[in-house]
């Protein structure tokens, strides 16, 4: 019986080892192809697209070897890389190329076949391609994925495909946005996909929209939002949002000598208070401000910080 088990195990282990060896060989060949053949083809596609974009005729360029293995993905990557740097040229040609070669439908099929982070990567690529409202509906199933990156990049596809309803998509996003995801949304905003009007975002009942609004305030240094930030700090129902608002006030170099701020600081633990003190020292707040906000037993700590960090401006 044991010998039979050994035989079965050996055969299975050899099968796994064979599969791994074939996988290694395949990965090496793919890597070689990527460096050689694909790099040359990518340059040709880019050249063809650039010539077509800068020409007046608006004629569809010829893509050599298109239809061969891997060329669709290569063309998608080339177009995605080009979309954000067209500098005012008419991008209708890129949209036309995607329609003509069925790249969006092919990408959706590719998304369906992939799993995990690969699926998220394909969705991220899809978000960079010019597309229409139908794409926003096509990625809805991925908003319920277990992988947070798949969920998030499905949202970015929706935002890119249908920017008119961007706020609705963010509001209905099923999970709270992480700081890194808000940062990615800021990158979309800089690409002109999201609206910069921070007011409705800060007033919204959706936590995600308020976080995006806070990020806009910080990113663009909007001092007019000070009052709303103080309201967030005073609102004890969302301590995480209050903390973010406090840091936003700090980065805007607003006066922190407010009752709301003092109350919030008393509720922070020692680690959070010290992190805030370091941030305040880096932003150049005066010793006097810290004295009025923090207890006397923390004085030696913040005095050291101010005395040291001020000199970094030398």
């Amino acid at each position: 019986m044991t010998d039979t088990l050994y035989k079965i195990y050996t055969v299975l282990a050899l099968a796994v080892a064979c599969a791994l060896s074939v996988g290694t060989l395949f990965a090496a060949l793919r890597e070689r192809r990527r460096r050689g053949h694909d790099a040359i083809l990518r340059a040709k596609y880019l050249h063809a697209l650039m010539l077509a974009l800068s020409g007046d005729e608006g004629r569809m360029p010829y893509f050599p070897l298109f239809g061969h293995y891997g060329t669709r993905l290569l063309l998608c990557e080339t177009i995605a890389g080009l979309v954000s740097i067209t500098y005012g040229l008419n991008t209708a040609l890129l949209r036309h190329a995607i329609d003509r070669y069925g790249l969006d439908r092919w990408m959706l099929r590719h998304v369906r076949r992939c799993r995990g982070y690969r699926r998220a990567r394909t969705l991220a690529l899809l978000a960079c391609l010019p597309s229409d409202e139908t794409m926003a509906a096509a990625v809805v199933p991925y908003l319920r994925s277990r992988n947070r990156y798949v969920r998030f990049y499905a949202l970015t596809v929706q935002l890119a495909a249908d920017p008119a309803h961007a706020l609705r998509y963010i509001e209905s996003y099923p999970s709270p946005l992480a700081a890194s995801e808000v940062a990615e949304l800021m990158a979309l905003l800089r690409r002109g996909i999201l609206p910069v009007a921070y007011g409705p975002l800060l007033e919204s009942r959706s936590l995600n929209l308020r976080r995006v609004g806070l990020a806009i305030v910080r990113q663009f240094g909007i001092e007019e939002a000070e009052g709303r930030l103080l309201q967030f700090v005073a609102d004890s129902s969302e301590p995480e949002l209050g903390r973010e608002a406090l840091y936003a006030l700090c980065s805007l170099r607003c006066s922190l000598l407010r009752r709301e701020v003092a109350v919030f600081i008393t509720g922070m633990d020692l680690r959070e208070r010290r992190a805030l003190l370091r941030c305040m020292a880096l932003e150049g707040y005066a010793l006097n401000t810290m004295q009025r906000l923090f207890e006397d037993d923390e004085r030696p700590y913040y005095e050291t910080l101010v005395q040291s960090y001020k000199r970094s401006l030398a």
Partner: protein
Amino acid sequence: MKVVLLLLLCSVGAAACLVLRLVLRGRDKRLLLRDAHGIGSSLSEEIGISVLCSGIDTPERIDALLGSEYTRFEVIVVLDAGGFPEEFAHLSARYRMIRVEWHGSQEFPTAGIRSLWRSRRRSCRRLVLVDRPQRAGGTAAESSVADWNAAASVAAYDYLLPLDGRTALLPDAVMRLVAELGEHPAGAVDVVRSHIGIPVALIARDVVMEAGGFGKRLLRQIPRRKRLELWEPLAGRADRTDAAKRARVEKLVLRAAVIVAFIVTGWAAVAGYWTGAAVTATVAVVAGAAAYGRQALAPNREVAYLGRRSNKGDS
């Protein structure tokens, strides 16, 4: 006894496949985040990283560290001006360092700092030079720990990344760490560490302060829920020729191990010696998984050793 050995072999093979899966997932995540440009530009107000350098005294290494595009980031180099006057003078001149007043930190009174220097050059504002006298008789590890403690006492940011002279960060390592921290709420992660390549760990400043400095048991004190494990390389060997040679040797050894294991397994199976065949088949699985993992991480190695070199210090 034979059943126990079989179970052991099964668990070794399964563990190799599991680690490979984690490495492939890590590779995919790294490739995904490589193109996430928003993280570097918009997350910079949230997360700050101080890189603490011990035994790093060449401008090339410092330039490579200063080359990171992340803004909330500083490089603290610890050097003994008394023991290495030429190196110290060279670095001071190259980066136009000026001595600044330093008051001992209340958090870390035993740092033993002689003086603190900062750069006057705008492009090198993120560089801090710490002059700390080396104690005679200590081991290299003790000296590194003392240097990191001194650097930690002047660090401005909330996360500390200690590096020694033999370790070089991969060019996108800082962005990768920032992206990982940005996934979690503030204060939820105390350590991010990588098991692949040269092990490095990004540690929350407060954890280091509470533990009284860097030490062997520092990472063990951190609860599991506050640890984040990465299965992708963040650092490589600083000596590029040595690293390239080592990589070639590793590749050859793994290929040879797979081939030899296949041959021996076949021979043992034909001879009816199934215990031996099972052992060598397990070796083939482990070597095959290692070879596949190495191949999958090839683009990362390329980044590491072709490397970007900053020209900030040249003028």
